[in-house]
């Protein structure tokens, strides 16, 4: 190996390690802070001589985590299966069936891909108020289904565009109707596409902050992220408890990602650049 080759390898490793450090340091700082003496203000990154693991228990009850996780789960279950199912059906139709005005419908949906949630939050608030849903979980679930839909349809349509036409033909020769062709042939083949979409939608719902903040007053009826916002408002000055609570709250997202990271990164790599 030449000298310049070694220099390059050292630089490369150093830069990558520096970037990785940048990525984890805020979380490490939170972790050591979460173990500090309750009520104290420790240094940014310092291992406490006497780690207070009990802080996590205190944060658990202070933030009413059981209620928060339960609420988030209800919201995720309300949003994800429905949105994935609707987006899969629409994506299939737009890609494989001869839909009247299909192009116009898809064009309208694509506009929604770039729409910031903030641009809609004001009218949504008054609409949900007049529907009498303000303050309920439906006030988060229903708009979220609509807001996530453009991406879902876009994602699933791209998948079904790549479906093998010969399969559809073969099914037709066997006398299958549209539904049977979809249900027996294309849906099973689309498992990787819709399951990746489901993980993305899980994260989007679980991490959703703006809608719960505005549409639901009671933190225990919000998503975890919305509850975390409220927790920060309440315990903003108690940095130890805040760090412990935040870590508890991000744990599920982190675990889901680490479990699925292989599939997740792969799906993202393949999906995003369709």
């Amino acid at each position, binding site marked *: 190996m030449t000298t310049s080759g070694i220099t390059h390898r050292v630089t490369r490793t150093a830069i*990558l390690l520096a*970037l990785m450090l*940048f*990525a*984890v*340091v*805020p979380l490490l*700082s*939170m972790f050591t*802070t979460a173990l500090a003496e309750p009520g104290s203000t420790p240094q940014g*990154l310092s291992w406490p001589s006497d780690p207070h693991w009990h802080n996590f228990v205190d944060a658990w009850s202070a933030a009413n985590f059981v209620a928060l996780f339960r609420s988030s789960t209800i919201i995720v279950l309300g949003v994800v299966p429905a949105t994935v199912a*609707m987006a899969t*059906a629409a994506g299939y*139709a737009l*890609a494989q*069936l*001869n*839909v*009247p005005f299909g*192009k116009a419908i898809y*064009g*309208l*949906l*694509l506009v929604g891909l770039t*729409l*910031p*949630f*903030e*641009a809609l*939050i*004001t*009218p*949504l608030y008054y609409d949900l108020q007049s529907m009498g849903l303000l303050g309920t979980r439906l006030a988060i679930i229903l708009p979220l*289904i*609509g807001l996530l*839909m453009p991406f*879902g349809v876009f994602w699933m349509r791209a998948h079904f*565009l790549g479906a093998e*036409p010969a399969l559809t*033909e073969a099914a037709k020769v066997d006398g299958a109707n*549209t539904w049977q062709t979809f249900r027996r042939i294309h849906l099973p083949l689309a498992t*990787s*596409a819709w*399951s990746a979409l*489901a993980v993305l939608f899980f*994260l989007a719902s679980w991490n959703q*902050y*703006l809608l719960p903040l505005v549409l639901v007053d009671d933190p225990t009826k919000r998503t975890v*992220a919305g509850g975390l*916002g409220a927790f*920060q408002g309440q315990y903003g000055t108690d*940095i130890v408890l805040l760090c412990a609570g935040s870590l508890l709250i991000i744990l599920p*997202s982190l675990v889901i990602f680490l479990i699925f990271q292989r*599939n997740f990164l792969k799906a*993202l*790599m*393949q*999906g*995003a*650049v369709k």
Partner: protein
Amino acid sequence: MRSISSPPVMRQASSMTGPSGAPAATQPAVPRPIPPRTRHWSALLWIAPAFGMYAVFVLYPMLQSVQYSFYDWDGIGPATPAGLDNWKAIFTQPELLHSVEHAFILIIFYTILPVGLGLIAASFIRELRPGAFSTTARVVLFVPQVLPLVAAGIAWTWMYSSDGLVNQVLRAVGLDRHARAWLGDFTFALPAVGVIGVWVMLGFCTVLLLAGIGKIDPALYEAARLDGAGRISEFFAVTLPGLRRELVVCTTFTMIAALASFDVVQIATQGGPGYQTMVPGVEIYRLTFLQQHVGQASALAVFLAALVLLIIWPIQRLGREK
């Protein structure tokens, strides 16, 4: 989740296209006789639920926003027509204008830096032998993208606080006089918020660009090497041109995040100190829910939506050109 074997992904499908209408019909999926009429219209049923939810909770509110933007309304009493006042205010009231400026400044942090650093990280990771280090690098860099932005805001608020890690490091290396409460500093608050954006977006860009590099024909690299290209010229001659579609996706995604930022700013600074970190997203929230200026908030909301569309659309076209 079931094992995700490489899905029959649609290489032939077009790259992510903007609202200009995708090439829906350029590639008729199935050569078939025109279906009977009944079946033809029944295809709408497949789309109805998705489009219905979208129409009720996205399209209709968007139209309402446009309508509200021409009124003065406190959200409770009667609305009075305001003509173009709310729209003029966006360009004349410094506070609103600044929020839009800040959104553009955030593009440097949300888009330019992560894409640049992501390119470096991705080309380095590509050179590594597949193994523990390359996987770890990918996963570790991606973690911030998975967490709620609220958590990113809280973590960094602590990093930047008087006793936080940033100041601790400065003191440790003898730069005590530069230590400060970063998010409360009139000069540094906005860049400090921006760095949070770098933190969140870097992994996303890296992973996506890495995927793109993986798709570049290795023969191109070999040819470049045979031509005696060094690492740098190889990067500009092979890697960069081969990544155009991935670059477009990264740019699109991160620019929307920059222009429409809300969570991080709301948690970290709420727009302060003064209006130093105010962004349109937070301003819309404040105008509607704290100041009851629904008309003004709606004008800014429509403006923001249009702005995002106008900026993203040309970028998407760039990605589709051959």
